[in-house]
């Protein structure tokens, strides 16, 4: 019983009351039926039942009051009882509280560490060595741009690629939505258009097949794709893929 029944009873006070009213009314009705079966007139039967039953409102209130023992008042009493118990044996209380605090604290600390080290970092080789190259102050519509967030034009990127000295290697990417599938089956999916060095620089290993490499870099058409693991699982059936032409 305990806490959950109390909370449940809180939200169901009206239902409980209605239940009690039904129960008492049915009782009265059974009494009336029995009286009539003994040969009383309907009126006498009702009067006798009412007389035996007493004041129905008072009765209902008394029954409701018994159920109200489920209320929060008794929960509060329980809490006070617990506190009194702790005060009586402070040594035990201290040990219990310390054990809980250390238990919770240690778990939190370990999780935070794990979260920072294992979960937050990118799943690539040397994530701490990655840096993003921007034009200070933004592109300002410089050259031919094809989107509001484009940082570099192709010639600028090619120039950066030729002179990437501070970095051991460099790649370019562009977030883009592409349509996958034929005609009406086509679905819009999030994609990245990447330069040939992308996967080599990140040091990502393929789950299956191979990744895009520098020699795959082509002109404007999209000729090679790499499916992300979640996309492969959810949209490509998670089956081994045979090289096919992109539709």
């Amino acid at each position, binding site marked *: *019983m305990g806490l959950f029944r109390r909370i449940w009873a809180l939200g169901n006070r009206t239902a409980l009351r209605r*239940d*009690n009213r*039904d*129960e*008492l009314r*049915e*009782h009265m*009705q*059974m*009494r009336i*039926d*029995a009286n009539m079966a003994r040969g009383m007139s309907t009126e006498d039967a009702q009067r006798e039942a009412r007389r*035996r*039953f*007493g004041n129905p409102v*008072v*009765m209902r209130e*008394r*029954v409701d*009051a*018994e*159920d109200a*023992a*489920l209320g929060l008042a008794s929960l509060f009493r329980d809490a006070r009882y617990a506190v009194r118990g702790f005060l009586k044996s402070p040594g035990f209380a201290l040990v219990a509280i310390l054990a809980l605090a250390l238990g919770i604290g240690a778990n939190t600390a370990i999780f935070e560490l794990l979260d920072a080290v294992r979960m937050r970092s990118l799943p690539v080789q040397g994530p701490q060595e990655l840096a993003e190259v921007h034009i200070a102050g933004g592109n300002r519509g410089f050259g031919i741009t094809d989107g509001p967030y484009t940082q570099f034009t192709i010639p600028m990127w090619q120039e950066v690629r030729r002179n990437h000295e501070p970095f051991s290697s460099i790649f370019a990417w562009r977030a883009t939505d592409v349509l996958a599938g034929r005609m009406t089956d086509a679905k819009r999916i999030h994609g990245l258009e990447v330069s040939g060095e992308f996967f080599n620089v990140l040091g990502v290993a393929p789950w299956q097949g191979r990744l895009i490499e520098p020699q795959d870099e082509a002109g404007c058409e999209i000729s090679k794709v790499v499916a992300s693991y979640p996309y492969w699982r959810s949209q490509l059936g998670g089956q081994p893929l045979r090289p096919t032409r992109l539709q």
Partner: protein
Amino acid sequence: MAKNDLQGALDLLVLKSIAQLGSMHGYGIVMHIERVSDELLTVEEGSLYPALHRMEQNGWVRAEWRVTEASRRAKYYSLTAAGRKQLATRVKNWEQVVKGVQAIMRFA
């Protein structure tokens, strides 16, 4: 010493009646006590229902809505394991009370 009072006696009567009947609604319990005691004992509805609900809160009885033979809806009460244990204690207490009262009566 056996702890008992009028309330305790009512609880005992109700618990015992439910135990005898298996499961019964309030009206049936009233009738049962009257019939079995040859109308020596009358349980008033005004005490019975609060007692039943208190016992339900204590987990001694469980209640469920069922249809009577006369096809009325009624809340049927039946004993839980805790209720049976409670009944056994109450019976023992009652026997002690009776013994005690009888001893006093004989003395006089």
